[in-house]
C-alpha cells in the first residue's frame, strides 16, 4: 500500500512540475520568444534568473544583497509569528475553556480581528518608530487573529463523549483540558498556524513597503521606483519560494504532532 501511494504521488509531482514549466515557457514566449513585451515592461525569465544570481552578491540599487533582504524579512516575520503563536494559541484555548475569560476578551478581540493587519502599520510606526519592532508588532497582530480563532473553535469542537470518557476515568478539569480537549483540537490549532503563516508573510511584505530599510518588500519598493522590474519579479519569486518552504516546515511538524487522523 505504501508503495502504491508513492507511485501516485510521483505522478502528481510530474503534473505539478509540468505546470510550472508551462508557465515559465509562456512567460518566455511573450518576452524573448515572440517579443510581444519589451524587456523594460516585462523582463524575460532568463533576465530575471540572471538578476536573481547577481543579486546574491550585488547590493545595488537598494543597499543590500538578496540574502540580507531575505534574512531581514524572515527575522521580522518569524519574530512576530512566534510571539503571535505563544500568545494567540493559549488565549484561544483558555477563551474556549473558560466562559469568563471568553466574555472578558471577546469584545476587544472581535473589534481587533476585523482590522486588516497592515492598517496597524502607521500606528506602530508612530508608537515605536521605523524598525524591527513596529513591523514585528504588525505581524504579531495579523498572525494572532487566525491562531486565536482556530484554537478557540478547535477546543469548542471537543466531543462531549470524549470529555465523558475522561471523567469516567477520574480526570480533573486540568486533565480534561490537557489530555482530551487540546489533543483533539490539535488539527485545528495547526490549521490556525498555517493560516497565520500566510497572513504573517503577506502582511510583512505590505508592512515593508511602508516602513522599512531592508527586507524583500523594501527591495521590491526600491526597484519599482527605478523601473527595475527584473528585481521586482526576483523579489516576488523569492517571497513565493520562502513562503512555500516555511509552510512545508510547518507541515513537517504537523505530521509529527497530529496523529491518528479523523474518525
Amino acid at each position, binding site marked *: 500500500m505504501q508503495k502504491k501511494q508513492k507511485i501516485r504521488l510521483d505522478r502528481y509531482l510530474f503534473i505539478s512540475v509540468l505546470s510550472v514549466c508551462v508557465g515559465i515557457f509562456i512567460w518566455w514566449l511573450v518576452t524573448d520568444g515572440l517579443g510581444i513585451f519589451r524587456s523594460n515592461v516585462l523582463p524575460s525569465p532568463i533576465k530575471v534568473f540572471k538578476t536573481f544570481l547577481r543579486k546574491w552578491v550585488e547590493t545595488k540599487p537598494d543597499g543590500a544583497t538578496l540574502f540580507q533582504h531575505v534574512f531581514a524579512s524572515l527575522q521580522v516575520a518569524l519574530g512576530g509569528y512566534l510571539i503571535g503563536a505563544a500568545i494567540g494559541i493559549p488565549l484561544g484555548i483558555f477563551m474556549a475553556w473558560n466562559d469568563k475569560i471568553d466574555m472578558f476578551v471577546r469584545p476587544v478581540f472581535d473589534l481587533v480581528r476585523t482590522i486588516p493587519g497592515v492598517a496597524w502599520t502607521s500606528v506602530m510606526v508612530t508608537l515605536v518608530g521605523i524598525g524591527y519592532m513596529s513591523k514585528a508588532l504588525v505581524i504579531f497582530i495579523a498572525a494572532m487573529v487566525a491562531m486565536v480563532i482556530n484554537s478557540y473553535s478547535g477546543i469548542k469542537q471537543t*466531543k462531549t*463523549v*470524549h470529555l*465523558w*470518557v*475522561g*471523567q*469516567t*476515568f*477520574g*480526570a480533573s478539569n486540568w*486533565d480534561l483540558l490537557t*489530555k*482530551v480537549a487540546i*489533543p*483533539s483540537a*490539535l488539527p485545528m490549532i495547526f490549521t490556525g498556524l498555517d493560516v497565520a503563516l500566510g497572513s504573517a508573510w503577506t502582511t510583512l511584505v505590505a508592512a515593508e513597503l511602508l516602513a522599512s530599510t531592508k527586507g524583500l518588500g523594501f527591495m521590491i519598493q526600491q526597484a519599482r521606483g527605478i523601473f527595475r522590474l527584473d528585481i521586482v519579479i526576483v523579489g516576488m519569486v523569492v517571497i513565493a519560494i520562502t513562503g512555500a518552504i516555511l509552510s512545508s516546515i510547518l507541515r513537517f511538524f504537523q505530521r509529527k504532532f*497530529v*496523529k*491518528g*487522523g*479523523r*474518525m
Partner: protein
Amino acid sequence: MSSREALIEFRHVDKSFNKPEHGEYQVVGDLNITVRENEFLVLFGPGQCGKSTILNMVAGFEMPTAGEVLCQGKPVLAPGPERGMVFQNTALFPWLTVMGNVEYGPKVQGVKKEERRKRAQRYIDLVGLQGFENSYPVKLSGGMQQRVGIARAYCNEPLVMLLDEPFGHLDAQTRYMMQDELTRIWQAEKRTVIFVTNNIEEAVYLADRILVLRNCPTGVKAEYDIDLPRPRNYTDPEFLRLRREIDRVVDHTL
C-alpha cells in the same frame, strides 16, 4: 443470588428533559432497579425508550429529576473511575494508539508508566488485540475498535461496567463474534456489567438477568433470570422459548 450485595440502586427515579421543541418530556418514570455484585444485567427495550439515559445516570453524565441513583449506597453525583463506560460509537481517542487509549485511565489516575503498561497489555491481550498496540483507532475495523473500547474500560478496573449498545454498529457476523468474546472476557474478569441492547437474541445470549423496559416514560415491565449454561446456543430449544416469551412482553408499538 440474594446473597450478593446490591451495587447499584435506582430508587423512584424520574428523568425529564426540557427540549424547546417538545417542552417537558419524561423519559424515565418511577424506575426501581437493584444491580447485584458480579451479575450480568441486560436492560432490554424498544428503540428510543430511555435505556441510554438510565446508563448515563449510573455513569453520572446525567442527573435524575427526582429520586436517586446509588452506587455502593452513596448517591451518584458525578462521573467516577468506579463506573466504566463502553460507548455505542466507541468514543476512542483518535489521536492515541491502541495502547494509549487502553492505558488512559491508569495514566490519569497517576499509575506509573511501567505498571500501567503491564496492566494495559494484559487487557489488550484479553480482548485479542496483541500486535495492534501501536495502531491508531482509525486503522482498525469496527469490531476491533469496540474491543479497544472494552479493554480501555476494563483497564481502569471499575466496579461496574456500563455497556451502551456496544455492538449496535457492527455487522451481524462480527456481532456474534463479539458476544462470544464479551462472554469469555466477563467469565475471565468477573465484574458487574450493565448491558443495554434492543436485540432480544443478544439479551438472552449474554444475560444473567434481563430487565424488559417499557416505552417512555420507561420503567421495568418484566424481569427474567436466565439460567442457561455458558457458552450458550442460539438454537437451543430453551433459548428459543425464552426468546419467544420475552418477545411477547415487549412493546412493539413504537
